[in-house]
């Protein structure tokens, strides 16, 4: 069963979270969106948000999980999307 979740992980645990999520169907490719307090690189956190299999959400114990939409979750944590320098 898929549930809506916004999941934020700190940069130091992002690779662990990616590896863990990738073990489940639909979990490969998570946590590619970079976040930081200023919106500038380097990323201090990574985010994934959407309809996600419940077993993935439950397995990601190193992450902060919310039912809020991504913009509200980011605001709660004082984070902004990192903007690439080139357009």
């Amino acid at each position: 069963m898929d549930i809506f979740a916004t999941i934020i992980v700190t940069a130091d645990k992002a690779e662990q979270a990616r590896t863990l999520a990738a073990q489940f169907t639909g979990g490969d490719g998570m946590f590619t969106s970079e976040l930081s307090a200023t919106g500038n690189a380097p990323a201090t956190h990574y985010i994934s948000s959407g309809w996600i299999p419940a077993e993935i959400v439950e397995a990601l114990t190193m992450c902060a999980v919310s039912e809020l939409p991504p913009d509200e979750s980011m605001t709660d944590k004082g984070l902004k999307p990192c903007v690439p320098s080139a357009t």
Partner: protein
Amino acid sequence: MFMLLGALPKDYYINSLFVSGEQGIWLDPSDFSTLYQDAAGTTPVTAVGQPVGLALDKRLGLALGAELVTNGDFDNADGWVLQSEASISSGSLNFNATATRTATATGASCVSGRWYVVEFDLTYTSGTARFDAGGGTTTITGSTGHKKYIRQATGTNAFYFSCASAGAVYSVDNVTVRELPGNHAYQTTSASRPTLQQDSNGLYYLNFDGTDDGMATPSIDFTGTDKMTVWAGAQSASTADTAIIAELSSATGAGNPGSMAILWPRLPYAVNFALAGAALASRSTSAPADTARLVISCAFDLSASAAVDEIKPKVNGAVPSLLTVDAGPAGTGNYGSYPLYIGRRGGTTRPFNGRIYQLIVRGAASNAGQIAAGEAWCNSKARAY
């Protein structure tokens, strides 16, 4: 002609834009028959709010190719090569396997890069049942009933059923494997799928969350043309950061010759049109505060010599009053063979926060009537003007 008659454009008119074999894609979120919740095409989209993991390209009319499987109803043993513990009896193919076994449909060659619709009736008992339609094993959902999958071949081989190393017990009947031509867009990561939504006018759109949502097609071979026409019905919900509606290649620029993109916003402007041959050309429309629903079209021409001729955009059926030239010209050459990324640059950055009602990309020049018809179609689905 339909414009003169005053009728709404029909599906067949958009299909007619591709009747001469033009490359491209046509995504129509208002047509539920083209949408699946998962990238494997096993779960149809049936309601607003559901994720969209596979959006089929309608430009070729979704017509299926010829049946590839001989004797899919197992009247006899013709057309199948069976390993031990697999048998054909009582009108079905039966696995009673204690180890990895296969049953191969010898004439059903699946070719790398092409998409196939695989359907069969499964009687499931135990174990992990699988099939392979051109590379990449697909695990079959372990329940009795009719099964349907849409998958892209990653290699070339004959279609076969199999089971995991621990074996499996199952039977299949009424097997059909047919090609589904098109450049279908998909997203394998659950969290990154856009959702189907409906606006206050009752019109359907794909909603991208501006965080991690996006889709992509396999590489589309546009190398036979230096002209392209793009139509979209869309609406941006944010003016915060530059974002991708659709982009051919991982990033439009000289590093990816023969690439193009439509961005909204592209700060400090609203809609931006980018084209690259040996260099980048770029034109932008009005200020980013413009977040109204729009029908966008653009004629891209790499054979032209000036940016204003290489990139000819229209917004809501007219040339925008404020249209800058940010860079250019783009240089010459043909388009490349790249994935079309939708809603996100290269599938990783510049996430689009907004709605896509329609998206049509045609690898050819379009005349004024064709451009107007595409705009009219998109407007019938987005009601922008």
